């Protein structure tokens, strides 16, 4: 059964829950399969950095896998919807940082002309594409939070290490450079239900390339397909996805009750807050932040996210699948071209700050900066959660910070700390005593062993404590590691965020 937090009530399928008032957010903490992922979240199994591991191929689950796919099994369409949305949030969050890491591994300004391409192949183009897709995944993550809020469930921004045995998660979480097999994984994860004939051969090549490393990759899109199906009023197809096929036909044939959706409209993220777009924006460039008022708008939100990823009826070239397939083709050509320069720097996969292994950061300066990067990433996730939990005019309890503050801090983390930190860490050596040609590190995007806090009070304390840790770490870096002028500016920008947090939330331990 659901592992509910104390004081919460269980939703009765098809009925308004007794004891849960409109606007009161339930905390449904989905029970975790003990076999899911490694013990340290964000840290993949060590063997991912080594020889390829063959996984069992399961592209389409059969009835028996309904239990394995969602454990514990949901008792209602609503519960299944919530479970899938939480998984979707984890996948969006995980893909986003993996795309950012891969983009960061690219060398700037590299180009090569190869026969068969009517344009030069440019590393900067790949960088722009991957960062754009990552930003769009952020929009998806925020929209999924709105869907959860509309179902009267609290936001879910945590990032579980992708379990190896579920038919829902595309592949195990792993920060990898932008090499062919990595791009192949992304192609497979973003693949549509039916790949166009013109793309078929290259798609199958991507499947082979990815399969050699991680085995078969379930499409992330099928989660949205199943979500749309759950949000239909009946088994009959509905607009805007009239040709949708239920990806899991052997799963329960139930649908979300209309009375179960539409909650917390005043708390949902808005396109204005997140500098995002509504559903009318083009899929190529739009960063969708969609609000949910009822089942119809929920279906539109799910469809729009799905369309941007895999592309029912989107403009050719505009979907994530199209973009990654193009990069895959170009990468493959670059690898095959004898005179190609290096597109990717010598950078470690899955850099770690704590576990001893092939990619553990041992250079002291790099380690300090990597810890700072981890702090800021964790703070970003909590800022997002608070921004969509606190009401539009209310403040968080006992502090003067408002929803707008948390939203702005999230942007400052993305733009003025994580982005420049990532760029710096891609230049820093992984190991102590490394030569200039030895492997670089990269931002580890690590999460702590425990779950991120899920109450407002705990989240606020988390930010206080992290800001305090950041103050100390910045002082250590300044005192011990002789920051360059650029690094000094980064530290100062981060310091401005810490100051703002401490002014509004108080000083942590």
């Amino acid at each position: 059964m659901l592992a509910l937090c104390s004081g919460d009530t269980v939703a009765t399928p098809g009925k308004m829950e007794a004891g849960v008032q409109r606007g009161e957010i339930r905390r449904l903490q989905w029970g975790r399969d003990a076999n899911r992922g490694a013990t340290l979240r964000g840290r993949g199994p060590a063997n991912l950095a080594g020889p390829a591991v063959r996984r069992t191929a399961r592209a389409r689950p059969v009835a028996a896998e309904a239990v394995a796919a969602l454990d514990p099994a949901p008792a209602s369409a609503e519960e299944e919807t919530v479970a899938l949305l939480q998984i979707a949030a984890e996948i969006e969050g995980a893909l986003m940082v993996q795309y950012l890491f891969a983009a960061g591994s690219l060398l700037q300004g590299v180009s090569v002309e190869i026969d068969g391409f009517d344009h030069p192949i440019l590393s900067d183009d790949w960088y722009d594409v991957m960062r754009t897709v990552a930003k769009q995944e952020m929009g998806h993550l925020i929209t999924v939070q709105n869907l959860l809020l509309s179902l009267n469930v609290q936001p879910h921004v945590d990032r579980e290490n992708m379990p190896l045995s579920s038919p829902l998660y595309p592949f195990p979480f792993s920060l990898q450079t932008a090499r062919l097999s990595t791009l192949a994984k992304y192609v497979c994860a973003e693949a549509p239900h039916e790949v166009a004939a013109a793309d078929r051969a290259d798609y199958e090549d991507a499947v082979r390339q990815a399969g050699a490393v991680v085995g078969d990759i379930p499409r992330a899109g099928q989660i949205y397909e199943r979500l749309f199906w759950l949000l239909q009023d009946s088994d009959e197809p509905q607009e805007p996805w009239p040709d949708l096929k239920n990806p899991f036909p052997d799963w329960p044939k139930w649908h979300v009750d209309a009375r179960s959706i539409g909650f917390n409209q005043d708390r949902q993220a808005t396109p204005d807050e997140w500098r995002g777009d509504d559903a009318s924006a083009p899929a190529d460039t739009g960063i969708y932040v969609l609000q949910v008022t009822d089942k119809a708008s929920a279906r539109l939100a799910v469809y729009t996210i799905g369309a941007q990823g895999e592309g029912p009826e989107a403009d050719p070239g505009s979907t994530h699948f199209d973009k990654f397939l193009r990069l895959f083709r170009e990468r493959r050509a670059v690898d095959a071209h004898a005179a190609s320069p290096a597109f990717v720097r010598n950078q470690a996969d899955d850099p770690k700050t704590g576990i001893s292994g092939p990619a553990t950061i041992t250079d002291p300066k790099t380690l300090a900066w990597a810890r700072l990067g981890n702090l800021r990433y964790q703070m970003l996730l909590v800022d997002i959660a608070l921004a969509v939990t606190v009401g539009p005019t209310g403040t968080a309890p006992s502090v003067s910070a408002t929803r707008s503050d948390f939203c702005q801090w999230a942007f400052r983390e993305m733009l003025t700390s994580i982005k420049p930190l990532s760029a710096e860490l891609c230049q820093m050596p992984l190991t102590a005593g490394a030569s200039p040609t030895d492997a670089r590190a990269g931002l580890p995007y690590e999460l702590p062993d425990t779950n991120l806090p899920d109450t407002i009070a705990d989240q606020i304390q988390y930010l206080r404590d992290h800001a305090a840790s950041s103050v100390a770490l910045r002082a250590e870096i300044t005192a011990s590691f002789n920051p360059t002028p650029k690094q000094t500016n980064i530290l100062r920008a981060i310091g401005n965020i810490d100051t703002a947090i401490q002014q509004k939330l108080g000083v942590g331990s």
Partner: protein
Amino acid sequence: MGTVYKIHPAIGVARVGNHPSAFFVGPERVGSPGVELVAGDEKPIESYKLDGQIKRQAARFRIFRFLQDDVGNLQLVGEVTADDAKIEWKVNLCNRKAALNSTPAQGHPARPRNQNIADRNRLIIQNPTPVVISGKDQAAKEFNGAFLEKPVYLGELRTDAKGRLLVLGGRGKSESVPPGADLPSFANNDLWHDDVADGPVTATVTLPGQEPVTVHHPSWVMVGPPDFAPGVHAIVTLYDVAYQAACDKAALQPEAKPSFQRHIKPLIERAAGLAWVSNYARWKDLLAPDWTKLADTAGTSKQARTDVAKRLMDPGLRDFVMPDFMEKYLNQWAAGDFVSDLGAAAVEVPVPDQLDRAALDSCVGNNFFPGIEASVNLRDKDIYARPFRLDPTNLAKVYPGCLSEIMAVPWQADFMDCAGGVWWPSQRPDIAMVAAANIPGSKADWAEPIFDHQGMVDQYQQLGFVIPSRQGDKIVYAEAERDPQLPRDVPVA
């Protein structure tokens, strides 16, 4: 026939800069970067900084005399200068950003500001009276206002050797009162102010022995941030926005068929320019396209025309809006319904119209969130009395400070966050080629190592300008005049 005096440009554009005295006159002809006034002479500008400080861009205004017939048609007679008459200019600059009380439009990021300050006049920066100036080569007459009782210099008026008006804006100084207030938002920061502004420009003309005549068609001046890529234009400029507003008002009508030379080629060139400041990969091929093919109405060129038209209509910029007339022109061009006049001699354009166009063409009109020089209100046909000319009698929408009040406060915060190359890279570059001889290998982050709003407030003036230079037989755009005290780290190979 009656005499009508008009001031041109209808909307002039000045830009802030931190040099105490050096300035140049902004573009007055399409393709011109502007001129510097040196010992009575006018020379094309060659550098945007002096002693490491940014020169301000002055907006220069001139008066033209027209003859109006019985049905209202105007015939240009010529410019009226201080050689011909006594001209008394009057300007009323105002910055009321901090006193904004409403959200201008759905989706616009400006929000009511400083709501806890009851006396809104304390937030409005304005000289106590409009500033007046007359004569040739007049020394500066300043605009001095206050923000929460702190004095703020907002600009000055001067005149040139012919008595034409020169409007200079502030020195790009943004502060909070009291100092040290946080800068969390890209658009709305309470207790902060900057020193851009806008307001009406009018004049009286007194011919010898005659009574003073107030100009019949006054102008407007807006002061914006520096244009750090002055040779790169937005795909959609403020001229296009104002032109569309004039069409909406039925005051202008698009041509029946677009001219390739006058309408389409410039659009392609503007998009190509983004290669230097935004996305080199995306736009590089348009730097030297097959013009002959693109200018051909033949069906064999249709696919090429269609592909380029699509790219211009969807250039990958956020919130991009292309005016209807431009879309119509591009669709006609793609379909082969256009005048194939590649290489045709330039059509003679009267000087007043050149002034109007050059000023607004240097401003970005792609997208308004909120924008760089001005914002969504320029799309509103109701603010115009005539094409490109604001209506000062529309007091509800046109008043001193009406254009700048919905822009970000301070502008540097928005400038910082407009990274990514998808907002206004033609004014605020995302990338810059650091070495003109190494394209695209020298591509670098233009704003590095500035990472946050406060950093941009403190250091924007140290950033470089992206300007054209000749490399062999090509024109390339590379960074110049960046402060060496603002170094970028050398990337590891």
